[in-house]
């Protein structure tokens, strides 16, 4: 039986990995991920599971050691944040190209400079094209669920890709939340032991990570793209199974009060909860607003997005990172491109919000929507806006 408990979300993420009986954890501490690292080491130190904890000397080595361990057939977990994720950048696309099903919790945090330890998504966005499956959790329950789902998705024979679970730093990692911790037996039934396709062992020697030139590189890239694209079917199936077993439903884009909504707002991560309260308030005022909470960032849920925005006049895309000198926020850029070939599409507004831990309250989300409602279909001068920026 699942147990309802109050627990710090970072600790819960580590607990979820323990329920998956990881064999190896290779983690380097960084705020606000540290509690994940520390708790993983506690679990191993107490012998709660039979695993190795590698106290690597950097994040580059964390991912490298994770890859080495994963290549032997071990189930591997790691976690990082911000500068640590940037430091890993070199090896991330190699992990996916080598089809190593590593699971990584990311306590999302702003990237320097200036140095800032608070939450936004500027760490994960530069990793967008590294070929990882990328999930975004909204609350502690989703963190636990996604960490467990992640192993099942990653290790599926038709996927064999690494997965990152994005957890807003502080806003989410450091909250003590009431949540349901699945029972070990239930998780064991859901997640069978990892059966790797090939491993590093002298009984059946293989060469992994070979050099490949222009005669095959394109083919490898296409295979990786196809793996990502095809993984969606598995993700959806895993979520269906999860719902059956644990009673909680997951969708690539979760709608909130979308029925009859003329103005939709799209969020990723923990801000969905605040935005939902704002939507309730707006509805009370008679403003036909709704919310789209995107949980699946890679593979990008094109069909679900197209379906979700049908009928809406305006779509406000919130971004927690900036593509400097580019189209505004990376999420809006992708949403615009995904909807471009639709016969009818909503006007798209891009609000860059909550950078470096800048607080977003219910009133702020309401203000954003009301401003959009007032403007109607009138085109904005700017393609994007730094919401709440102080100027002069």
């Amino acid at each position, binding site marked *: 039986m699942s147990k309802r408990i109050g627990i710090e979300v970072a600790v819960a993420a580590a607990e979820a990995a323990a329920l998956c009986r990881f*064999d*190896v954890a*290779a983690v380097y501490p960084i705020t606000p991920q540290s509690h994940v690292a520390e708790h993983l080491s506690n679990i191993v130190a107490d012998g709660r599971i*039979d*695993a*190795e904890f*590698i*106290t*690597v*000397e*950097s994040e*580059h*080595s964390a991912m*490298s*050691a*994770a*890859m*080495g*361990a*994963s*290549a*032997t*057939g*071990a189930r*591997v977990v790691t976690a990082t944040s911000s500068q640590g994720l940037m430091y890993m950048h*070199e*090896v991330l696309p*190699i992990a996916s190209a*080598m089809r190593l099903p590593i699971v990584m919790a990311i306590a999302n945090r702003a990237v320097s400079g200036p140095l800032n330890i608070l939450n936004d998504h500027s760490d994960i966005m530069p990793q967008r094209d590294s070929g990882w499956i990328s999930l975004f959790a909204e609350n502690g329950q989703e963190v636990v669920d996604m960490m467990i789902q992640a192993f099942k998705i990653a290790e599926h024979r038709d996927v064999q890709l690494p997965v990152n679970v994005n957890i807003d730093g502080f806003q989410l990692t450091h909250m003590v939340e009431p949540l349901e911790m699945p029972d070990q037996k239930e998780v064991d039934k859901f997640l069978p*032991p990892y059966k790797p396709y090939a*491993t*590093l*062992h*002298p*009984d059946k*020697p*293989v*060469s*992994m*990570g*070979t*050099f*490949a*030139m222009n005669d*095959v590189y394109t083919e490898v890239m296409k295979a990786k793209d196809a793996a990502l694209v095809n993984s969606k079917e598995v993700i959806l199936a895993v979520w269906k199974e999860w719902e059956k077993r644990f009673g909680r439903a997951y969708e690539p884009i979760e709608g909130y009060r979308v029925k009859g909504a003329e103005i939709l707002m799209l969020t990723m991560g923990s801000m969905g909860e605040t935005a939902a309260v704002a939507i309730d308030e707006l509805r009370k005022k008679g403003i036909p607003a709704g919310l789209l909470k995107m949980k699946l960032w890679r593979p990008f849920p094109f069909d679900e997005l197209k379906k979700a925005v049908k009928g809406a006049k305006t779509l406000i895309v919130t971004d927690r990172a900036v593509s400097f000198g580019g189209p505004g926020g990376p999420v809006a850029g992708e949403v615009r491109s995904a909807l471009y070939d639709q016969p009818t599409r909503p006007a798209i507004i891009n609000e860059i919000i909550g950078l470096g831990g800048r607080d977003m309250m219910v009133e702020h989300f309401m203000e954003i929507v009301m401003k959009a409602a007032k403007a109607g279909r009138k085109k904005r001068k700017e393609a994007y806006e730094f919401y709440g920026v102080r100027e002069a």
Partner: protein
Amino acid sequence: MSMPSNFKLVENFDLYAPKLTDREEYFCPGHRACQGCGEALAVRLMCKALGKDTVVTNATGCMEIVGSLYPTTAWKVPWIHVAFPNAAAVASGVEAGLKALRRQGKIADRDVKSVGIGGDGATMDIGIQALSGAMERGHDMLYVCFDNEAYMNTGIQRSSATPFGASTTTAPAGKVSIGNKTWKKNLPEIMVAHNLAYVATASHGYPLDFMNKVKKARSLKGPSYIHCFTVCPTGWRSASEITMKLARLATETGIFPLYEVENGKYRMTVEPRTPLRPVEDYLKLQGRFRHLPPDQIKVIQDRVNMEYRKLLNKVEHSKSWSEM
């Protein structure tokens, strides 16, 4: 891939070789190393000494490139390459993975050694952090640096292993430059400072000495380090047929002495004839030193003498930890 049955390396090979080494090839013919490549020879010897129960993690560099062009591979032992700076970290993960799986009974209960390998660039420069971390953490692994004294794979650029006075593509000799202006970093000494139970220098010029060291390191539990000198005819602008001769000259001149440090105790494993041969005998055979005027050769000779005395002093005065 296996050796053709009529393949004869040396006269009467069949008679005495099996007593000295494994006939089996684990780094097989057909790879794309240059003629006379000392590094390829050293890797081959290392594999023979390690045997089949080995997982090799290879940093980016010449050996990775020449041995693994997809869809071919020269490797008969399990082999992985991830990137340039991280072979030691990957190898430490391999060790941890094998250890966990073996303990849980998920794989056979058999001793499989994790071995990280890299060039001097991969080991001494960009990968020194990962190496230091892996060695300090006490993994049961061996790391072997194949030192050809520059970044050969990318076109003979200088590294911290490049000797003083060598002309490289980023430390070229010119009108106002004698080439590389720094002395070779002493990585074995840095490894000794990690309190490893076993650190050794080696050279493909002394194959049995090298293989014995690899076997010794392999048999130890815990981290160990071997720094293997390898001649690169392409980068050194030396004739490919004198690769072995150059490797031996490096030791005979005292430029690259062969020693091991076991539990803190230094021991010469190859005693060169004294007095040592002049460094010029070694330098003059290589294009990378051809520009050096006599006064600079003297500077090198003095430094080599001093370094050699420093080493002899350690050999004479160091004690094993158990005697302390």
